[in-house]
């Protein structure tokens, strides 16, 4: 949810410039945010209500049908929205905090330390997220929402750190950094006044992209049983449960799939839109 808010403020700062992609993206993400908030106070049925008949086709009572335990699928998908947004926000939050910190450290480090950090990041990025998730689950003694968020957060932080390192180095080599330092700006002030604001647009776009990927990854982890455990409905787990009956009751797989695609596509649109409105220097030419 934090990323959606960031998207809003950046687009507001862009003023006159409007990006249709950004607006469509914000609408798609906004629907999910609204649904997720709604589930906190109301859902069509109780999530654990098994009063419906099993594997029912869509009807007025159950717009997305029921699962093999007779639970309302729409309710499950709506709660899945909440889980997906929580996982995305949590993973991005962890990834941003660790990634930006280490990326900046590497950009300022001596050459030796920088090379060491860069190599470490390359190893982390090459490390399969799946394996990482299994290790985290093992370390925590069981799969949970937290273990999925932590594993994805660590994986994202490596990508964010590498990006931060590269973009910061480019900013640090600019004349305005030297110019600012000639007037007596200290390094910490250079980071907060010049480096962070100048790398921020690039990072926000990347956060939006990673958010979408994190949602997909969480669905994959849950599908494999490494993510959100029952009774919490994750889209990935809904897909897993629908697998056996996909030929007889295809809605069980299609409906959570559509929800997943909507959110991920929305976040990708937001990322593209933010890239379009970007920084104030690009507003002039458009």
């Amino acid at each position, binding site marked *: 949810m934090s990323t959606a808010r960031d998207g809003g403020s950046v687009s507001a700062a862009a003023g006159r410039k409007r990006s249709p992609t950004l607006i469509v993206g914000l609408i798609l993400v906004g629907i999910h945010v609204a649904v997720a908030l709604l589930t906190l106070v109301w859902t069509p049925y109780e999530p654990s209500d098994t009063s419906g008949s099993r594997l029912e086709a869509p009807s007025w009572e159950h717009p997305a049908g029921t699962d093999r335990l007779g639970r309302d699928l729409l309710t499950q998908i709506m709660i899945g929205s909440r889980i997906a947004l929580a996982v995305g926000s949590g993973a991005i939050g962890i990834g941003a905090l660790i990634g930006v910190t280490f990326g900046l450290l590497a950009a300022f480090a001596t050459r030796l330390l920088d090379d060491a950090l860069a190599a470490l990041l390359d190893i982390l990025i090459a490390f399969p997220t799946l394996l990482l998730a299994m290790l985290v689950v093992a370390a925590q003694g069981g799969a949970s929402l937290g273990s999925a968020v932590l594993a994805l957060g660590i994986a994202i932080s490596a990508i964010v750190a590498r990006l931060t390192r590269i973009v910061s180095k480019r900013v640090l080599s600019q004349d305005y950094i030297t110019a600012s330092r*000639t*007037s007596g700006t200290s390094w910490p002030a250079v980071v907060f006044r010049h480096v962070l604001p100048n790398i921020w647009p690039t990072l926000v776009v990347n956060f939006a992209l990673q958010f979408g990927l994190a949602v997909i990854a969480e669905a994959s982890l849950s599908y494999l049983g490494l993510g959100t455990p029952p009774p919490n409905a994750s889209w990935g787990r809904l897909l897993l449960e629908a697998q056996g009956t996909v030929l007889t009751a295809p809605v069980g797989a299609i409906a959570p799939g559509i929800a997943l695609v909507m959110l991920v596509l929305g976040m990708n649109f937001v990322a593209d839109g933010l890239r379009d409105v970007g920084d104030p220097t690009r507003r*002039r030419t458009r």
Partner: protein
Amino acid sequence: MSALLSVQSLTVRTGALELVSKVSFEIEPGARMGLIGESGSGKSMTALAVMGLLPARVHSSGSVLLDGKEVVGAPERTLVPLRGNAAAVVFQEPLTALDPLMKVGRQVAEPLIRRARRNGEKLARREVRREVRRLFEEVSLPEPDRVSHSYPHQLSGGQRQRVALAMALSCRPKLLIADEPTTALDVTIQAEILGLLDRLVRDHGMALLFIGHDLPVVASVVDQMTVLRQGVAVEQGPVGQILREPRHAYTQELVDAARTFDAALEGSA
């Protein structure tokens, strides 16, 4: 009277390559020194060495005494308070020397706020705004309030260089280093900025280190001149003397080139 800036056999090298070789010169408070030479002659490296801001893997040796403090080999915590207070720099390309994402009023305000904080004062927002406005008026920027709220890309080249000058002034430096401040500007703007620079240095009693490659431009604002060629100071002395009787063949070339250019201009007129 002790010199404000004393450079003694300054050598700047990267790896085995010597960019500046044993350059020495002194600038008294209020004096004006020109550093002239073609690109790659080590002018800008000398300026950066004076500020203790050489890029990584470029090292200096010798001695640079700025306002009585040794710069060569000094740690960052000695250099940070020295920068801005002892000397400030105006760069060649004002578009890249200003942060593209920060409104220019804020960029001029930063050194003001920092100086106040170091003196243990706290400036109210209104005072900062008034001081920025005053600085913008001093560098003859039209509509100071509008300019203040603009981003660098929304200003013209001349306006940007005026902002850069205001930024340097806001530090109240004893020495102003101008590194090719007019090279990126067209000729009419160039004359305006040179006039402004001349006035500001006089009004504030600042010393000036003016770096350039164009002999007539440099000669028009300074009293003393150092001619650099491939990192070596080949000639040094008062401007008049150097123009009248250049002793080194390279200086002679520069003077001749300027004369030929003048003659060509007059011939076509």
